[in-house]
C-alpha cells in the first residue's frame, strides 16, 4: 500500500491511519469504529465537516455512551449511526414540515379565530380532540371522582407501571403457570389492558364527536349526551 499524500476535500480522511480506534467504556472493549473506507469522505478538511461536527455535538453533549446492546452484537447485525441510521431523519423532518404546511394552507377551520373573548357570551366549549374523551368521561359520574380521583390514579399507575410490571408480573406469571412474564406485545393480560384502554378512549371520543343530539342512557346523570 502506497502512503502517497492526497490532496483535496476528504484528504484528511483518506490519509488517516488505517488502524481504527476502539470504543472503550468502563473497561469494556466494544466495536471498532467504522473503517475509513466505509465512511463518507468528510474529513476535518472537508467543507461539510462543520455540519458533521454539528451532528456529532448532539451525542457528545449527551454524555458518555454506556455499554450498549450493539457492543455485544456481531458487526453484520449493527450499522453506524452516521449516515446509515441518521439519513431518514432529515427526510422525515422535511415530510412533516410539508404535511403541517399543507394542513395550514388547506385546513383552516380550526385555525380561524372566533370573536374576541367576552364573558357575557353564552358558549358551550368543545375541547380539542386530545381532551375530548376526557371531557366525555367526566360526564359519566361524580365530577370529583372522575376528574381528580380517577385521573390521579391513572397518572400514578402510568408513572409507576414499570415497577408494577416487574414486581407483580412474575408473581402473576407463576400463579398462571407461565415460564416468564412477557412484554405487553406478547402478554394477554397487559396487552389486553392496553387494547381495552384504547377501545374505551376511542368509544368516548366517538360518543363526544356524535354531538349533543346523541344521548345514551347512563347509570348516573342519565342520559349522557355527546359534546
Amino acid at each position, binding site marked *: 500500500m502506497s502512503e502517497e499524500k492526497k490532496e483535496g476535500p476528504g484528504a484528511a480522511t483518506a490519509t488517516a491511519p488505517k488502524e481504527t480506534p476502539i470504543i472503550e467504556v468502563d473497561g469494556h472493549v466494544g466495536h471498532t469504529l467504522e473503517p475509513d473506507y466505509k465512511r463518507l469522505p468528510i474529513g476535518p478538511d472537508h467543507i461539510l465537516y462543520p455540519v458533521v461536527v454539528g451532528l*456529532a455535538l448532539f451525542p457528545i453533549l*449527551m454524555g458518555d455512551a*454506556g455499554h450498549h446492546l450493539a457492543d455485544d452484537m456481531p458487526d453484520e447485525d449493527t*450499522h453506524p449511526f452516521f449516515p446509515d441510521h441518521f439519513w431518514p431523519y432529515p427526510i422525515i423532518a422535511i415530510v*412533516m414540515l410539508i404535511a*403541517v*404546511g399543507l394542513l395550514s394552507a388547506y385546513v383552516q377551520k380550526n385555525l380561524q379565530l372566533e370573536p*374576541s373573548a367576552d364573558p357575557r357570551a353564552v358558549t358551550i366549549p368543545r375541547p380539542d380532540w386530545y381532551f375530548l374523551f376526557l371531557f366525555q368521561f367526566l360526564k359519566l359520574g361524580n*365530577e370529583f371522582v372522575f376528574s381528580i380521583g380517577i385521573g390521579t390514579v391513572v397518572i400514578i399507575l402510568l408513572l409507576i407501571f414499570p415497577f408494577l*410490571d416487574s414486581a407483580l408480573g412474575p408473581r402473576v406469571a407463576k400463579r398462571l403457570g407461565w415460564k416468564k412474564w412477557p412484554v405487553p406485545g406478547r402478554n394477554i393480560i397487559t396487552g389486553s389492558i392496553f387494547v381495552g384502554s384504547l377501545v374505551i378512549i376511542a368509544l368516548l371520543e366517538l360518543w363526544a364527536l356524535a354531538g349533543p343530539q346523541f344521548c345514551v342512557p347512563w347509570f348516573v346523570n342519565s342520559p349522557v349526551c355527546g359534546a
Partner: protein
Amino acid sequence: MAIPHPREIQLAVVNWLDERYPFTKAVDEALYQRVPNFANAFYYCFGGMVFILIVFQLLTGILLALYYVPDASGNPAPAYTSVNFIQNSVYLGWLIRGVHFWGANLLIIMVLLHMARVYWTGSYRAPRELNWIVGVTMLFLILALALTGYLLPWDTKAYFATEVTIKITAGVPIAPVATLIKELLQGGPVVGPPTLQRFFTLHVFVLPALIVLFMYVHFRFIRAHGIAQPM
C-alpha cells in the same frame, strides 16, 4: 501575504482544537457508533419525530412571540388583535401559526405512538424505568403546553374552554385547596387578563424550559442505555 484557503483555515482550527481536546476522536466516536439493525424499523423513528416536532414548535413559537401581545384588557383585547394580525397581515404569519398549531396536534399523536411502541415492546423494563417516568412526565408537559396555548388567541372558544378546564382542575372537595388552585391559575375571581398573563408565562417560559430539561435527561438516559431490544 497569500490569503489561506478556507480548507486550510478549517484544518488549522480542527488541529488547534485537537491539541487541546480529543476533538476529531470524539466526533468520530459519536458519529460512527454502532446501532443495532432492528432499530431501523419505522416504529423506532417515532421518538426522533417527536424531537423534530418539538424543535419545530420552539422555532415557530419564537417567531409567533415576535408579534404576540399577552394582554387581555379591553374588547377586542390586544392578545386577540395580535393573533388576528399574525394570521391575516404578517408575511407568512398564517403559515407559521398553522405549522405551530398542526405541529402541536401531530406532536401529541407522535408522543402517543412513541409511548405505545415503548409499552408494546417492553422498552420500559429495567434499566429503563426512570426513562419511562421522564417520558410520561414529558407527555403531561406537552398536554399542559397544549392546554395553556389554547387560551392565548383569547377568542370566545379559548376563553370558555379555559374556564371549564380551571373549574375541573379546581374540583377538589376541600374548599381552601380548590380556592388556592383556582386563584393560582386564574389570578383573580374570574378568567381575565391575569389568567392570560399566567398561561402565557407557563406556555412560553416555564413549560418549554421544563420540556428541554426533560428532553436532555431523556436523551442522556438513551445514550447511557442504548436502544432497547424488542423482547
